């Protein structure tokens, strides 16, 4: 992006380079499109009864129409969890990045700690958050409030689920932001400081605008990821309402084979919501770039 701005409008030579790059990327993209295509086709066929485990295939929209109310409730729950987790991850992630940029020695330590958070599997993270936040967990014992401790795990607001995602994903956001701006931000901040900008002003006027594109990209990734992930919501969420992935897995593993089409419907709805979010994010990004 920076390169393009520096060299001005695309020349013919550049266009052919782009073509060659696309050809190379084809090797990676074709298998992905094939796998996603096969799974989506299979899910679509199963959702309308054309790929049954038992009996002859029979076209039917029952799975799509039978539990619309619950599907909507699940979608709303999932979008709520994903939206709150994304906002928290962005805020915390940006603050982490700003801290790392500002504090040289402590920042390095914080950066290493954040990086170390990322490879921890979500299910382990969820287990740890469960031990920390549950009614008789570590925090409750530490604070010694057996009767007044709020229902964070399995509570109605999915607090523990969101805490797990926010914790893991904020580290991811921080690393993406740092990776994309750390080279350019130093000089600009120095210049701003020379002109008399305070630390707060430098963060808001220099670091934040530079970080917006990477924040937007990571917001889309975090949103889609949390929308589709199962472990934390299953382990730490309440019995009802059910987020989309939990509902999909429950229906998919149901002993009643007739529930398979509904599982596929749930999965496809989850995909549809994600696609909408990705498209919105791409549009917003384009818009942002054209503004500059």
């Amino acid at each position, binding site marked *: 992006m920076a390169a393009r701005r520096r060299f001005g409008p695309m020349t013919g030579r550049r266009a052919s380079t782009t073509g060659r790059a696309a050809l190379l990327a084809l090797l990676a993209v074709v298998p992905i499109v*094939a796998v*996603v295509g096969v799974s989506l*086709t299979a899910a679509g066929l199963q959702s309308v009864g054309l790929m049954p485990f038992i009996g002859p295939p029979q076209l039917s929209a029952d799975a799509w129409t039978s539990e619309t109310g619950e599907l909507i409730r699940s979608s709303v729950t999932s979008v709520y969890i994903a939206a709150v987790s994304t906002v928290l991850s962005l805020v915390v992630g940006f603050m982490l990045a700003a801290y790392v940029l500002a504090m040289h020695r402590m920042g390095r330590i914080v950066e290493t700690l954040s990086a170390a958070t990322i490879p921890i599997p979500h299910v382990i993270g969820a287990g740890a958050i469960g031990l920390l936040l549950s009614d*008789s967990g570590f925090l409750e014992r530490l604070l010694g409030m057996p009767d007044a401790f709020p229902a964070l795990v399995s509570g109605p607001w999915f607090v523990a689920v969101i805490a797990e995602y926010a914790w893991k994903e904020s580290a991811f956001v921080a690393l993406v932001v740092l990776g994309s701006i750390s080279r350019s931000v130093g000089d600009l901040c120095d210049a701003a400081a020379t002109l008399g900008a305070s630390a707060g002003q430098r963060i808001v006027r220099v670091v934040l605008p530079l970080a917006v594109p990477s924040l937007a990209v990571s917001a889309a990734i975090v949103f889609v990821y949390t929308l589709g992930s199962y472990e934390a919501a299953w382990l730490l969420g309440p019995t009802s309402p059910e987020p989309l992935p939990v509902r999909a897995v429950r229906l998919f*593993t149901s002993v009643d084979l007739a529930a398979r089409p509904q599982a596929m419907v749930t999965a496809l709805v989850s995909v549809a919501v994600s696609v909408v979010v990705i498209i919105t994010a791409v549009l917003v990004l384009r818009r942002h770039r054209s503004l500059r």
Partner: protein
Amino acid sequence: MYPSFSPERRRFLLPAAAALALVLTGCSGASVEPAENFGTFDEVLAAAAGQTVDLWMFGGDAKGNAYVDDVLAPAAQDQGVTLRRVPIADTPDALNRVLSELQAGRSDGSVDLIWANGSTFSTGKQAQAWQCGWTDLLPNMRYTDQDDPLLLNDFGTPVDGCEAPWHKAQFTFFYNSDAITDPPTSLEGILEWARANPGRFTYPGPPDFTGSVFLREVMLSTAGGADQVPLPYSDEAFSEYAPAALQTLEELEPSLWREGATYPRDEQALNTLFADGEVDIAMTYGPATLTDLVGSGALPPSTKVLTLEEGTVGNASFLALPVNAADAAGAMVVANIALSPEQQAAKADPGTWGQFTVLDTDLLTPTQQNLFAQLPESPIVPDYEELSRNAHGELGSEWVPALNEAWRQDVASAP
């Protein structure tokens, strides 16, 4: 920022992917025939030599794992069959694997034997995923009672020789004797106790296996006893007996742990609440594990088993053989070994696993009977005779998803 494709190329990619998808999914629905049929057990033994049997079973029970690895597998090795335990989180996972492989037309399936029962069995039977009629070949079947209802029907689904019995289980409540000095003696009593002691009782949320059993027990109790509800599922029977149970549970909700706003995920989650002193009564379909749980300190030493006057539900679990198992003969040999009096007695030892035998000990020789007579008693769990007093069999498996779904709609999702 990202390489983007020209519209032409995009137009080419989508049909290509769709075509590939159709090719790959087009082979579904192929039917797989059982590999071979055996006339005698000697033929089975001959075919089994050198085979490796993959036994897919719930991997969350350390004693069960140790029994299979240290007792059953060496015995199978002696007869030339290697037994490999494949741990899974949930039994339907194994059936899902079989169904997916059947759908893909694979005849050399990776699952040879599944520790199954109840809904998994009936789902598999519905999908014709099991080999049937092979248990008659097993010599050790002669030690079982031919008329034992628990071995003839698995949750109301006729067994038809599609799975070999493995052990019996009895649904059991247990309580904290420090907190409850005068324990209730019936299921109705338990619910009354729960109402009188708000926040001190809960049950795992169905479709969890244990929570689902509790749900059915409540229905039998509100119907006036186990003999009132017909075992086979029908819509009429459901609308006659289920509403009372659901209403009872709905009315019970405010008295439950967290006022019923949520339910423990599974039996382990309930055990954690019990161990942390958040609830005083818990339940399990595997009372064999209690001795160990108390011994290791996972449950408090004040844990005591609660036997109900009207009895609780019991069932047998089985080893089922998928229709496309690659090592079917070896699987039959393992199932036969697992049924031998020596293996059944070893497994019944609380120190090993503590699972109740499926054999009829009257049919055994005095030496074999002695194996069972010598078993040490558990300090926590009474013997099978006492636990299974007034016991009843499971309802037909179709009751299970129907009740689970109704519970989720009426009780769990209620505002």
